[in-house]
């Protein structure tokens, strides 16, 4: 498995570099993560009297800073960290590929994803444009079906989410009614999420109730998430305030404001960026049902506190 995983990552890197993407390494420790109501960052103790740093839950804000400084196609492939995420599809420390391109929108990202799935399937030894996962043959020939959130909710959940749906209901139905009903034999893009479900995404010009956000699913796995990026710094600040308020209401700790990121937005060109879970991609391509099976070691067990 580790050999297959290594091969997938190697081919992914060469594909991106052939496409003109520059691999960058931005810091894994930052002073202020994006205030998102549902993602908890790990804090890093810097020493007595100093404020904590945070391990990145995603390299997103640093990559956008680089775009604002003039780079136009970049990617980062490495570890990210999220508290309290552990299960058959989740690790608290996992590997993410994030790529960004300027002068592009989420349609370009979908084409990128299709190419990535094709290329990595080949490196994992699959032929004939298909992958068999958990006994089901998945046809991975582009183009993958694209379905809007409105349509998929109307069909399987029996209601139409507006621009700011009840998030509890939205997420519950997503997990219990939508995800189990997605076509099993094709990867699929879910697109155009309610505006309130994408705090860093641009709203769709033709329908401002939704954001230009897309998610790739395959074999019941949520593989990637991306959007046409919001470039309006005032709008971004207002959305961060809202999210910070939601965090406060849920009793979550307050994060410092990501000042450098907000400043850099003034220079951010039109762009789109996608985050892809490498571990889940490897699960799909090696027919693994548990994420622990595709990493060198599963997460360390919590050790009992040392005796004084």
């Amino acid at each position, binding site marked *: 498995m580790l050999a297959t995983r290594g091969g997938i990552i190697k081919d992914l890197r060469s594909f991106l570099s052939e496409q003109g993407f520059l691999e960058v390494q931005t810091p894994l420790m930052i002073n202020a993560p994006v205030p998102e109501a*549902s993602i908890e960052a790990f804090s890093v103790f810097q020493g007595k009297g100093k404020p904590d740093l945070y391990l990145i839950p995603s390299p997103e804000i640093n990559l956008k800073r680089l775009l604002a400084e003039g780079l136009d196609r970049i990617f980062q492939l490495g570890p990210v960290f999220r508290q*309290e995420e552990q299960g058959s599809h989740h690790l608290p420390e996992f590997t993410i590929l994030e790529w960004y391109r300027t002068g592009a929108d989420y349609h370009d990202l979908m084409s990128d994803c299709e190419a990535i799935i094709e290329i990595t399937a080949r490196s994992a030894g699959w032929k004939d444009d298909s992958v068999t996962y958990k006994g089901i043959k998945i046809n991975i020939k582009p183009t993958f079906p694209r379905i809007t959130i409105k349509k998929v909710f109307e069909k399987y959940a029996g209601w139409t989410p507006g621009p700011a749906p009840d998030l509890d209901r939205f997420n519950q139905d997503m997990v219990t009614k939508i995800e189990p009903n997605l076509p099993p034999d094709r990867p699929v893009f879910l697109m155009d999420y309610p505006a309130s479900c994408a705090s860093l995404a641009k709203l769709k010009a033709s329908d401002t109730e939704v954001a230009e956000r897309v998610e790739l699913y395959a074999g019941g796995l949520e593989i990637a998430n991306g959007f046409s990026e919001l470039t309006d710094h005032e709008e971004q600040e207002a959305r961060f305030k809202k999210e910070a308020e939601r965090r406060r209401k849920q009793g979550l700790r307050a994060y410092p404001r990501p000042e450098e990121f907000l400043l850099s937005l003034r220079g951010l060109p039109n762009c789109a960026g996608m985050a892809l879970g490498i571990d889940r991609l490897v699960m799909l391509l090696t027919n693994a049902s548990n994420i622990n099976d595709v990493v060198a070691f599963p997460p360390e067990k919590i050790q009992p506190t040392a005796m004084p």
Partner: protein
Amino acid sequence: MYDSSDLRKGLKIAIDGEPYIITDFQFSKPGKGQALYKCKLKNMVTGYTVDRTYRSGDKFEPANLNEVHMQYLYRDNEGFHFMNTITYDQVTLTNDQVEEAKIFLLDNMEVDILFFQDTPIDITLPTFVELEVTESAPGVRGDTATGATKPVTLETGHEIQVPLFIKQGEILKIDTRTGEYVERAKK
């Protein structure tokens, strides 16, 4: 008190005062959404199964259960009778409750009986039991080196697969979790 991060397969919790065991568990987190914990739960008294989805921060009472070491006495029309060897209290489990355990259950065997309040609801056999072979098809010839097996009948009446060299009258060690033959018991 448990919270949602304690949820896992096999955990026993109380819902509306009744004991449930989690038979299937999945952590789930739709993109940018909050954590959800999908559970299949089995009511440990009625056997009914329900699906529930819990959120981060939800709290759960542990199921009010306790396990008592008891000795198996006998079986009759009412069911299976067990006795607490310290207090001499006796309880009865139904045929359904003893389920798979009965194939390895022998008179005087020491087992654990699970109680919900004062009601016995489940039985746990010792991990390993030793049972005598009462019937074995004689003279099956075969290649013993390739791990060929044959069926034998145990003193409880249950049939299992064993290596060809096992003979009638021998005592076998059996793993009750898998229901499989382990080795010949040392005399």
